[in-house]
């Protein structure tokens, strides 16, 4: 019996009807407004490290593993039209 591998997007799907396009690491992805940066990245196949996030729960932002710097954890940061790049922090 094999396991079904489900993709964990990190945060729940946004129900917004408006869509926005983000550029992450130079690649464009179109997601509903209010989508977390973490989820948008996962839509592109980019896994952002996380311990406290899963797509069955609202983002909590406590483990800080997905942060670029203080106050900008990618699980709690939602879409805004601007470019995001991977950092080696």
């Amino acid at each position: 019996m094999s396991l079904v591998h489900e993709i964990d997007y990190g945060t729940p799907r946004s129900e917004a009807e408006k869509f926005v396009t983000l550029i992450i690491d130079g690649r464009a992805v179109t997601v509903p407004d209010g989508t977390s940066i973490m989820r948008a990245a996962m839509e592109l196949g980019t896994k952002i490290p996380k311990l406290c996030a899963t797509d069955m729960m609202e983002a909590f932002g406590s483990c800080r593993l997905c942060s670029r710097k203080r106050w900008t954890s990618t699980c709690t940061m939602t879409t805004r039209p601007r470019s995001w790049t991977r950092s080696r922090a």
Partner: protein
Amino acid sequence: MKAAVEIARRGAVLGRRVAGSSYTFDIKVRVGAGAYVCGEETSLLESIEGKRGVVRAKPPLPAHKGLFGRPTVINNVLSFASVPIILEKGAAFYRDFGIGKSRGTMPIQLAGNVKRGGLFETAFGITLGDLVDEIGGGSASGRPVRAVQVGGPLGAYFPRALFDTPFDYEAFAARDGLIGHGGVVVFDDTVDMAKQARFAMEFCAIESCGKCTPCRIGSTRGVEVIDRIINNTERAANLTVLEDLCNTMKFGSLCALGGFTPYPVMSALTHFPEDFGAAPRRLQAAE
């Protein structure tokens, strides 16, 4: 505060029809239970909502989603207290106090081992040395002042060599310090700075809301690492670990509690390495 609000309400300055106008404006005082972290704006909101004082992730900023999920403006009492004088004497009057980008005045709390402690309001720009030696009158014990912690329990320790620093946000930041809420705690030459560094980590461990990992776990690990340094257990290696841990806390913590704990720790280590059993090194922040 509650008495002052009651007087204002009786004088029709607060409540319905403020001062005979058609505006309604009121003040309600909510008293916290004393948790340090509830001074952080988002845990303050949680606390007012009747929940445990746990920091929220930002964004959304409180101005977008604050108290009970509604847009909320948060201001320090310090800012409110500056309003009457600005309205009475004009913006220029207030602006003409201070230096650089730090305008106006600051209420400074002189405490610790100081001859004349208390609350002093003065214009920005006074040097740390003038504050401690002129206004404060030096140490209460009569012994030489060795270290001063500026900004509160999470402020940096400054040695005498930095007493020429003007009380100014940028000038303190340039020397890896902070003004914070204007608390100044004076220590004489009997102080053990390694113990003070340990106290900062211990304070963070006690006061942490426990939400984010760098602050919750980092502070407890910090106490342990400093204990090993004090007991000379692999001192050199543990000093490296401490610097690395402080870096993680400073940039990884969710709020300023974990984010600022490295200031007292690293400033004690930088300016008073001899207390950690390390060879004194040159001041990095002094130029």
